[in-house]
């Protein structure tokens, strides 16, 4: 049975999630990828306020295709996460509790997740048409000039993800593959 998660996601809730848990996320999440992460971290390093509140925030690494008239969003699947590794530890220290992406994370990110209590979710890469159906509303809240890379506030319903790395550092990419190979 998938775990239902309602955002914002507290550190206590994040700590309860375990690698391999299937989850359905509902509520508000924010989009940000390479360029937006760079700007957020530059602001934070200068001690300036961020355009979104990072406390208990879940960030989705996505740059959607343009919405057609009358629709909330275009195709919207995850992008590869390691490109955000340079920025994630700072955002986690500022309150970010959940990241949604795909692919491996660096040790510096996992260390920050363990220290502060955050979780890394995977959504199925290359399934943007399917995942967009869970996005009910989308509005740009910062960096409109970045186009697909602007920060959007998404309202999602039962957005399907799986916990890839939990706040203990357990990693489904390692355990899932090992379990499969041992079954052979």
């Amino acid at each position: 049975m998938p775990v239902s998660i309602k955002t914002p996601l507290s550190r206590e809730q994040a700590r309860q999630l375990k690698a391999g848990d299937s989850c359905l996320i509902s509520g508000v999440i924010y989009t940000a990828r390479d360029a937006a992460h760079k700007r957020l971290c530059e602001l934070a390093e200068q001690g300036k306020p961020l355009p979104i509140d990072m406390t208990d925030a879940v960030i989705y690494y996505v740059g959607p295709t343009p919405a057609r008239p009358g629709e909330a969003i275009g195709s919207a699947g995850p992008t590869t996460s390691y490109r955000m590794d340079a920025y994630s530890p700072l955002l986690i220290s500022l309150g970010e509790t959940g990241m949604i992406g795909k692919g491996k994370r660096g040790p510096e990110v996992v260390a920050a997740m363990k220290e502060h209590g955050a979780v890394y979710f995977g959504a199925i890469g290359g399934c943007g048409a399917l995942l967009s159906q869970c996005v009910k509303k989308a509005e740009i809240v910062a960096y409109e000039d970045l186009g697909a890379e602007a920060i959007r506030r998404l309202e999602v319903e039962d957005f399907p993800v799986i916990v890839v790395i939990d706040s203990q550092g357990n990693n489904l990419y390692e355990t899932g593959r090992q379990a499969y190979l041992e079954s052979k």
Partner: protein
Amino acid sequence: MREIDAGQITQVVSRLCIQANRQLPQDMKNQIEACRSQEDWAPAKEILDRIVENYQIAGDNDRPICQDTGMACVFLKIGQDVHISGDLRAAVDEGVRQGYAEGFLRKSVVRDPLDRVNTGDNTPAMLYIDLVPGQEVEITVAPKGFGSENMSQIKMLRPSDGVQGVKDFVRKVVEDAGPNPCPPIVVGVGIGGTFDKAAYLAKQALMRPVDQRNAAPYYAQLEAELLEEINALGIGPQGFGGRTTALAVNIEQCPTHIAGLPVAVNINCHVTRHKTEVL
């Protein structure tokens, strides 16, 4: 001499950009569904089911299969007996501009690799032109996503490394990539030529349908062996474990220098897209 107006090429490129991004090629669908039926690991089966569901939704509702609608790689095979009136390069870029706007596709190109300002219309196309006999123009558009492009590698092996060196390198590239390029992947391999030619061959290899083996029996056998070895790695769909790590290994080979054995591996995802029209 046949006359073709560059404007006709704009129209075809525009149409192909849209169609390629919405409709997965039939050979890819067949291969994904065949792998789904052979997969015995439950989490992997579940992911392959979602992947099938996704391309069905995209195809039925005219939606991009993936939000990374790619850099537009455009391959032109121009007959030597054709004269194109107008600016060919500008015509191709105009086709990309129109297709990406009309098709609600994502604009993912920056004007400079270091200053990184988005061009806003997904131009320029990555344009490859080949002159061939005849009086036709064959146009292929292959939108290339960068999650997989970033996982590609090239290596200048020594001739003494031989076929084993090639196999070890290809497996290493897939292992290094792990879950990042959205497995199950298609592995394009270019062997021989020069540094740049090997990379081009690897990209060309990704244009070949996944159900079509290399015409040379030796390389067809190598493709089959590499596919089996890659699918024994256990990476699986999305990297969560399973048999289906790769859908196909496509190799293109070419003469090379006595001192060299260049090998390029261009990775593509389960949304390996390309569409062709002939004028």
